[in-house]
């Protein structure tokens, strides 16, 4: 199994994708992205305020070599998302798009039906489509069938930091599709990212858990290590869970170390002791 993450024609050695929203400052964004080791970061597209016409200051400040993944955040219909994706491609000269269409302002859950509609159009127009979607194997298979380059099921509601609410379903999705699965939204701590990677996720996208941490740079570093640890653990194969204890130290040669207990007939000789121990 290769350790390279493939998204369409793009190759990445880092499996931590980082969002750039909600950081306290531009400098902290850049420093945290550098510490994260990420090679792909998300950005959002918004109307340029004419009183501050120096647009896209963020892009100029990003670490060198960082690829940009524009999102369609703000879209509530397929039509809006397609419009945003086309604008982003024109400005950034990238085929990558994180397709995000929200259905509800309270939960920020993805609108799976509109997302599928938009995905069909965008794939047809040559985009490398990475759709944010529900943690539902059925919609993930549909998105794969229409040609998406990956699926991005949520771990928990956006910005909630609740971690993997349904690891069983995420694990099931991973088994049922061929394309990469990137867990997006709801990751709260490096432990959550590690859990996601350990169950076989191909990458995780983290934003708020880094940006809103007390020390974003330290937290970005912690996430980098957790994603690497989780990936390595997955590749190395964890042991099966067992209901009973299994000694990790050998029982052979133990008899010479045991002190005979007076009055205990079964412990009078080494021979008997071994028998008791091994029975």
């Amino acid at each position, binding site marked *: 199994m290769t350790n390279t993450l493939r998204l369409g024609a793009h190759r990445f050695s880092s499996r931590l994708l980082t969002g750039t929203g909600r950081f306290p400052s531009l400098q902290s964004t850049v420093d945290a992205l550098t510490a994260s080791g990420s090679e792909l970061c998300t950005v959002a597209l918004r109307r340029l305020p004419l009183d501050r016409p120096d*647009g*896209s200051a963020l892009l100029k400040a990003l670490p060198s070599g960082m690829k940009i993944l524009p999102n369609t955040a703000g879209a509530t219909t397929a039509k809006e998302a397609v419009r945003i994706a086309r*604008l982003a491609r024109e*400005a950034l000269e990238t085929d990558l798009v994180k397709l995000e269409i929200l259905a509800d302002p309270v939960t920020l859950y993805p609108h799976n039906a509109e997302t599928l509609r938009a995905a069909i159009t965008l794939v047809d127009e040559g985009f490398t489509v990475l759709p944010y979607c529900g943690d539902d194997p059925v919609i993930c298979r549909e998105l794969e069938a229409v040609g998406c380059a990956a699926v991005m099921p949520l771990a928990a509601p956006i910005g909630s930091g609740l971690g993997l609410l349904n690891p069983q379903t995420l694990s099931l999705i991973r088994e049922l599709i061929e394309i990469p699965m990137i867990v997006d*939204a709801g990751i709260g701590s490096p432990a959550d990212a590690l859990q996601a990677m350990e169950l076989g996720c191909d990458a995780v996208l983290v934003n708020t858990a880094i940006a809103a941490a007390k020390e974003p740079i330290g937290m970005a570093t912690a996430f980098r290590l957790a994603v690497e640890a989780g990936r390595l653990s997955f590749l190395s194969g964890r042991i099966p869970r067992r209901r009973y204890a299994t000694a990790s130290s050998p029982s052979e040669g133990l008899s010479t170390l045991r002190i005979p207990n007076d009055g205990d007939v079964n412990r009078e000789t080494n021979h008997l002791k071994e028998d008791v121990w091994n029975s």
Partner: protein
Amino acid sequence: MLPDLLKHLGIQGTVAVELNGRLVRRQDQASTPVTEGDCLEIVHFVGGG
């Protein structure tokens, strides 16, 4: 032309432009005229997840 207007407005950096609801391709900007009454949408990139 469109680039003249963007320059006049002091717009720099990476932006995308729609003119009357139609995306202006990068290579077409220099040859796209802008006249009174046109509706322009100019977008740029900000932090997001």
